[in-house]
């Protein structure tokens, strides 16, 4: 609609932009970044509808914001619903930004600026470990600021809003105070004494922090009392986008002060040129930002993790190709290979980084959890339970126990037929919204299986030994001593020895256990190993009478010749093409990886 040569940015325009923003947000969160934005955050908490759970948030600065954030995050269990909630949150964020911008007098010519905050928020949402609590905290601070813009001329009112903001959203009070102070110092037509208002806001902040520190949050370190829910206090939260999001609002208020429109913004129309420029800028900005910020590695590794959890080996192995070779991604890939029976055939088709990619060190939550999954898959339920428990308790975030670990522990208790512990882990899950039906099903399944004598599952061992966490090869050896037919343990041990480059140990393991494992034919990588062993040790050809690998002898000879000539780029290309997936290639071209 045109009025006096200007386009009115009326209701229809608002609805169109709102729909577009919600649609883009939903696509970005539930489509592109589904795994790190939704799956990850939901699994790392367990929202419970219990009194003690509610109270546990009050002991910590910003507890109210955290509680609301956790409440909303639980809906990520249903990704579409979670995505919709995130999209609505982004939309509301834009509304708040728009409202602040209008109230501070932003000219309608710059309406595109109000889309920057939602964009930054969307980029933040794609960071793994980002929590909605931070958004809630910002909402509280910005909402407080909006209220002060409306009625910020009463010192007591100002002090009250500031105090409420602190006890709801902790460190976000600094954002509120910063915005308010900027506003006070930059606004010319302010009613009330600006210095009294300034003192009221600063004094209220100081008093709130002091009261919080001395009386409310007596077990929180000073840093948390001051900075919880700010980018400064969370190590994994340190992302450029988060800092940008925080600094955007003070900049916006400063800009508004500098380019203040004399007329009230809502009634204004803008020229067609300005409209087009704004729309083009916003579209380009969103496009570039999404393109640049998309963290393919994080997205894929969490996707890979969820696929392994779901037992989708094909999906996992196809996702693997898009991940960087880290300890976690290798461990997950190798798990997918072992559980699908393809490790002896395809292990070196995938980028290996050494033994740490087979049995990862327990350096962090995911690696510890992955180690538990490995031992669980090998049938060592008690060990798997141990690893899962340690992953859970070692992940000392404010939310402590999470759905991912408790679900696993419930499953392990079920396998062991431990009804007492099953009920123990069932209780927190039953206190949640989405896991209670699952628990009910599992309880019924457990009762059925126990009645049928199927659980407790028969232990894989007929005896007991102490596990060697730092030497998984020893554990695998002990496991094989107890159960020489344990194919997965055999494959893990062979894999370990081969990744170590310990050809002798691998052959010894092979000689000891291979015959009892009913392989239809010698797997490719084991045949490559035997050829290597034979040639390295200069053994006679009758070696192949015992080891069915003679068909690879000529290939090995060719590989050796090519290896010797591998300074030539053409040879390099051919060797990668023909032998890039062999053990020989790994051993000769990545010797340093055997040490990892």
């Amino acid at each position: 609609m045109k009025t006096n040569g200007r386009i009115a940015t009326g209701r229809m325009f608002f609805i169109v932009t709102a729909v577009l923003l919600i649609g883009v947000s939903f696509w970005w969160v539930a489509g592109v970044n589904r795994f790190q934005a939704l799956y990850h955050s939901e699994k790392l908490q367990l929202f419970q509808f219990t009194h003690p759970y509610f109270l546990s948030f009050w002991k910590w600065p910003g507890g109210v914001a955290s509680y609301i954030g956790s409440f909303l995050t639980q809906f990520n269990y249903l990704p579409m619903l979670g995505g919709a909630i995130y999209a609505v949150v982004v939309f509301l964020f834009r509304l708040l930004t728009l409202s602040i911008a209008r109230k501070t007098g932003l000219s309608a010519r710059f309406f595109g600026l109000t889309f920057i905050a939602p964009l930054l928020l969307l980029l933040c949402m794609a960071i793994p470990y980002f929590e909605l609590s931070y958004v809630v905290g910002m909402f509280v601070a910005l909402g407080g600021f909006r209220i002060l813009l409306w009625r910020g001329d009463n010192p007591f009112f100002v002090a009250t809003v500031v105090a409420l903001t602190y006890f709801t959203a902790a460190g976000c009070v600094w954002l509120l105070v910063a915005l308010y102070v900027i506003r006070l110092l930059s606004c010319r037509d302010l009613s009330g004494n600006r210095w009294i208002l300034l003192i009221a806001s600063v004094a209220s902040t100081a008093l709130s922090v002091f009261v919080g520190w001395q009386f409310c949050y007596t077990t929180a370190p000073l840093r948390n009392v001051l900075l919880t829910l700010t980018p400064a206090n969370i190590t994994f939260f340190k992302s450029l986008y988060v800092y940008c999001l925080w600094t955007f609002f003070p900049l916006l208020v400063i800009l508004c002060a500098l380019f203040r429109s004399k007329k009230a913004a809502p009634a204004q129309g803008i020229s067609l040129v300005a409209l087009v420029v704004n729309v083009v800028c916003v579209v380009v900005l969103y496009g570039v930002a999404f393109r640049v910020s998309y963290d393919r590695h994080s997205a894929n590794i969490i996707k890979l993790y969820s696929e392994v959890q779901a037992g989708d080996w094909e999906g996992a192995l196809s996702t693997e190709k898009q991940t960087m070779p880290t300890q976690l991604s290798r461990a997950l890939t190798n798990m997918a290979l072992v559980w699908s029976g393809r490790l002896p055939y395809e292990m070196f088709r995938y980028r290996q980084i050494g033994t740490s990619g087979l049995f990862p060190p327990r350096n962090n939550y995911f690696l510890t959890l992955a180690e538990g999954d490995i031992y669980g898959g090998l049938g060592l339920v008690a060990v798997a339970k141990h690893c899962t428990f340690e992953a859970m308790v070692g992940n000392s975030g404010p939310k402590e126990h999470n759905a991912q670990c408790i679900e696993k522990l419930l499953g392990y208790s079920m396998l062991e037929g431990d009804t007492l512990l099953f009920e123990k882990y069932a209780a927190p899950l039953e206190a949640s919204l989405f896991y209670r039906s699952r628990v009910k099903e599992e309880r019924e399944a457990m009762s059925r299986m126990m009645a049928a004598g199927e659980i407790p599952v028969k232990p894989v061992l007929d005896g007991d030994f102490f596990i060697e966490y730092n030497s998984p090869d020893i554990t695998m050896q002990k496991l094989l001593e107890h159960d020489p037919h344990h194919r997965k343990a055999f494959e893990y041990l062979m894999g370990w020895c081969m990744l170590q480059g310990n050809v002798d140990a691998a052959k010894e393991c092979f000689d000891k256990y291979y015959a009892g494992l009913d392989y239809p034919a010698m797997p490719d990588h084991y045949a490559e190993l035997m050829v290597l062993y034979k040639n390295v040790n200069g053994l006679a050809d009758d070696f192949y009478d015992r080891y069915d690998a003679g068909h690879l002898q000529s290939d090995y000879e060719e590989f050796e010749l090519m290896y010797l000539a591998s300074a030539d780029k053409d040879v390099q290309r051919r060797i990668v093409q023909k032998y890039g997936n062999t053990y020989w290639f790994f051993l000769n071209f990545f010797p340093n990886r055997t040490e990892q």
Partner: protein
Amino acid sequence: MRVRSYIRRILCTVVLAGAASPFTFCADGGQHTVADREANIFPDYRNVTVPPNIAPLNFEIREDGRRFKVVISAGERSVEIASRTGTVRIPQRKWRKLLSAASGLELRVRIAAKTDSGPIDYPEWSIRVVPEPIDPYLVYRLIEPGYAVWGKMGIYQRDMASFEETPIMVNSLTTSNCMNCHSFNAGDPETILFHMRQNFAGTVIAKDGEVSIVDTKFPDEISAGVYPRWHPDGRHVAFSVNETSQSFHTEHPNVLEVYDQRSDIILYDTEEHTASSGGAIHAEDRFETYPEWSPDGRYLYFCSAEAKELPEQYDSLLYDLFRVSYDPDSATFGTAVDTVFVASKTGKSVSFPRISPDGRYLAFCISDYGTFPIWQQDSELYLLDIESGEAGPLDAVNSDEGESYHSWSSNGRWMVLGSRRLDGLYTRPFIFYFDSDGRAHKPFLLPQKDPAFYDTFLKSYNVPELVKGRVGITPRQVERALKK
């Protein structure tokens, strides 16, 4: 408008429904039945003995029913509680009045339920209230029953007469380090020590409100002090020094083993900051641990086992109970070691010896082997009558799961015991009465405001110690002392 009228309609329905159906024991309609068994409740407070200063024994009725009514009475006085969910929360003030009315007598508890098939009355049960109070505070460490890793942990005190729990120290103030082994001088809240590990390694000693940090690792000793016991003089502390390891089972009910590869006992002087060896206690081929003073301070009891190759022989490591005399004036131990209780002959092992304040009884844990009953499913609480020399299990107290740390109340009539009986993993504090005839009564779970609290609470109550008053030090005080 439509919404408003809808809300009004709902409100009217709720109010009318509430008013129209007063629920009584022999309420309306259906066939009235009397159950042939007591109602199933959690925690199980049926027929327990409680002190006059215990918090309300809130519980959940775990029976089918749409409504429940509970009447708790003591003589003329009674409290009536109605519940739709089966959760019974007894108002604190009314509970206190009930307790004072029933002191030396019994509280009678009647439960009725309204079910789909009609009202049910369950048989009445009682709670015996004895006049002897329990110490007013319980101090414990809250920690996940983990293995080698931990998250948040802290040492807390709980007011036994209410549900108030306050922290004494938490690791969120000190980079999530480990802290352990809090100990009081005969339950005196003014004299406490505990260890801090990792970044703030040291032993925190608080005496009369003054907090100091000391290093109890002396050059010739195996380790810094581990398991402490204050001498009644309030100056000396007997510490075990242990080189402790853990090994993890693959198929074993005990999950893991905690064992000492070397251990000894030292005497630490908190004023001079010196340590002396335990003299006759020390033997080259033995492991000594878990010191415990007699109330008069003239004997030190301790556990000792023949040294073994570990972890290979972990299940043949058997500790017996010994004692050595001690001269408080010269702060020296005697030269002869007396045998108090030989468990190894029967293939058992002793740990956590604790002597009653009157010096007559000694409670300890007995397990099949080893020195860490917290992780031993077979661990049971035993009692030794020091006068008669008779010893035996406290059957009224023990369960199928492991019993571990225990502590006497200062009047010797109450004990608190850490037990995993609820789920086999999470240690919970159970309290039991110990009468003047030396009999233990049925233990009851430390009451909580929300009776379902323990269901979803994923931390263990470690080292529950009864204390004679509120511990005055605060986490901030300890933090300041540590960061000085």
